[in-house]
């Protein structure tokens, strides 16, 4: 029988330590919505999303009330639109029309975000991939709920440098197109390498072609819970530290698993995966940087930070995989800057630089995330940053990503306010030396050798 102590512990995690389920995301295949007629395609897409997801929000709210656990976001991810729109989109404007149709249905069913305005161009771009990518700035400016992602490389294919060059320009154009809102469009646009097919987190969520018609993926959270648990083992050995993180990750993941199974049962949609990510929010105490400090660095970014993060990331996975048989998505610790109060403080006091963040991305689950940079950063430099991250992902067989925001009209020392879960961020310094000759080369970086491991 459950003891009073256990009940109090769970409720304390929820009330005081920000335990929540970060997102229930329904992945929906739109492959059967494709039609040669644009308007018909839009109607098909809207009908299919309505069919699977119209009860998502109310179901999420009901589960939340019955178990007393907050479920912060309800989202939808869809087949990369460059595939769905290939037959009917002949211009970038045609793709923008689809973006507007998606935005309309997202608002209608009440979800927080819809991800999958995407193209997978790891090796090469089709005409429709290129049209979709070129439509991103306008699509991001004209919609509220749509998230976009472009996968520019993978361990198996290498890095498509033509796409990397184009994405540097697209990130800049998106910043310009949304400059009156502090370039917010770039917060909904991510460039990936080795993107997973089943990621429930935005902005990189899309429903891969390896997936069934519809699936439920759940993203857990809980940096606050890990931080509070670690407070009780200050000064103790790494063995005790790791054990504590694993136990906590287990508990957090079990809650995610329960919510995923309930949502799956009530909506009649199969359960896909749990994404074991420590996803911070700007709320005080809900920070991955705070965990790193609790492990023992003065500020995130100080020497030792990469090792702390590597340890944290690994223990979260080890505890989490015991709690759920189906783990997928990104799974690890997220290190966004603007969404994490501890990271913001570390960046503001000079402890954290983009270069250190890049090193940290080698050992955690994502990449350079929610980093505000000066608005006058050249497109080629942005492409260089993307290429660096993609190279880390390609060589280390992991997902990496870049979601940076060149804030038009602002420079180092200034701050940008995105609001809500996206938080605020100081503009961080970018290395002033260029890389345009490198980025201007055409073609792709070959896939790395993964043989000869003796």
């Amino acid at each position, binding site marked *: 029988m*459950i003891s*009073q102590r256990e009940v109090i512990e769970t*409720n304390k995690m929820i009330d005081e330590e920000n335990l929540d389920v970060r997102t229930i995301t329904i992945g929906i295949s739109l492959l059967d919505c494709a039609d040669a007629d644009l308007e018909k395609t839009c109607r098909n897409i809207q009908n299919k999303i309505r069919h699977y997801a119209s009860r998502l929000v109310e179901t999420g709210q009901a589960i939340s009330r*019955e178990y*007393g656990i907050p479920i912060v976001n309800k989202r939808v991810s869809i087949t990369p639109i460059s595939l769905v729109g290939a037959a009917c989109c002949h211009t970038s404007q045609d793709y923008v029309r689809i973006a507007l149709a998606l935005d309309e249905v997202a608002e209608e069913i009440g979800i927080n975000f819809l991800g999958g305005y995407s193209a997978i161009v790891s090796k090469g771009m089709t005409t429709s991939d290129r049209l979709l990518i070129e439509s991103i700035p306008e699509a991001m400016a004209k919609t509220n709920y749509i998230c976009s992602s472009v996968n520019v490389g993978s361990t198996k294919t290498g890095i498509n440098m033509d796409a990397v060059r184009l994405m540097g320009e697209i990130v800049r154009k998106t910043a310009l197109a949304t400059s009156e809102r502090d370039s917010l469009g770039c917060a909904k646009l991510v460039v990936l390498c080795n993107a997973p097919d089943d990621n429930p987190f935005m902005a990189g969520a899309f429903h891969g072609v390896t997936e069934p018609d519809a699936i439920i993926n759940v993203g857990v959270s809980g940096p606050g819970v890990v931080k509070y648990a670690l407070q009780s083992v200050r000064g103790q050995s790494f063995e005790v530290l790791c054990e504590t993180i694993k136990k906590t990750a287990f*508990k957090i993941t*079990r809650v995610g698993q*329960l919510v995923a199974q309930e949502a799956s049962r009530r909506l009649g949609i199969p359960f896909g995966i749990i994404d074991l990510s420590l996803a911070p929010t700007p709320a005080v105490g809900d920070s991955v940087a705070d965990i790193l400090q609790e492990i023992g660095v003065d500020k995130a970014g100080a020497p030792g930070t990469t090792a702390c993060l590597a340890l944290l990331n690994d223990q979260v996975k080890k505890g989490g995989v015991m709690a759920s048989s189906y783990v997928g998505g990104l799974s690890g610790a997220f290190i966004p800057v603007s969404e994490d109060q501890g990271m913001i403080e570390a960046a503001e006091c000079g402890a954290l630089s983009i270069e250190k963040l890049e090193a940290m991305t080698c050992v955690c689950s994502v990449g350079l995330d929610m980093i505000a940079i000066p608005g006058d950063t050249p497109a080629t430099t942005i492409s260089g940053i993307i290429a660096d991250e993609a190279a880390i992902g390609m060589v280390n067989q992991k997902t990496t990503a870049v979601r940076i925001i060149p804030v038009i009209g602002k420079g180092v020392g200034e701050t940008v306010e995105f609001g809500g879960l996206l938080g605020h961020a100081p503009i961080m310094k970018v290395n002033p030396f260029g890389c345009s000759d490198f980025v201007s080369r055409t073609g792709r970086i070959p896939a790395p050798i993964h043989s000869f491991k003796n």
Partner: protein
Amino acid sequence: MDKSIITVTGRDTVGIIAKVCTILAENNINIQDISQTIVDGIFNMMMIVDTAKSPIVYDELVQRLQNAGSEMGVRILCQKEEIFDKMHRI
């Protein structure tokens, strides 16, 4: 069997258990276990109840208990047992 856990926390006042039990009885909810402690004047009570034979919509039960708690100046939560079971049992 459809188990839920009801927890009450707050300042100890007369009639907290009576009030909760009345709501449960009115809705044909059986109490299986009650434990309570008072530490530093803070009242902590946990009840394990079975809602299987109750006609009430679960959401409404949660709301009614919550409202009763607000009237008495305490916090009353009603949660399905699985969340605790999943988290604390392998």
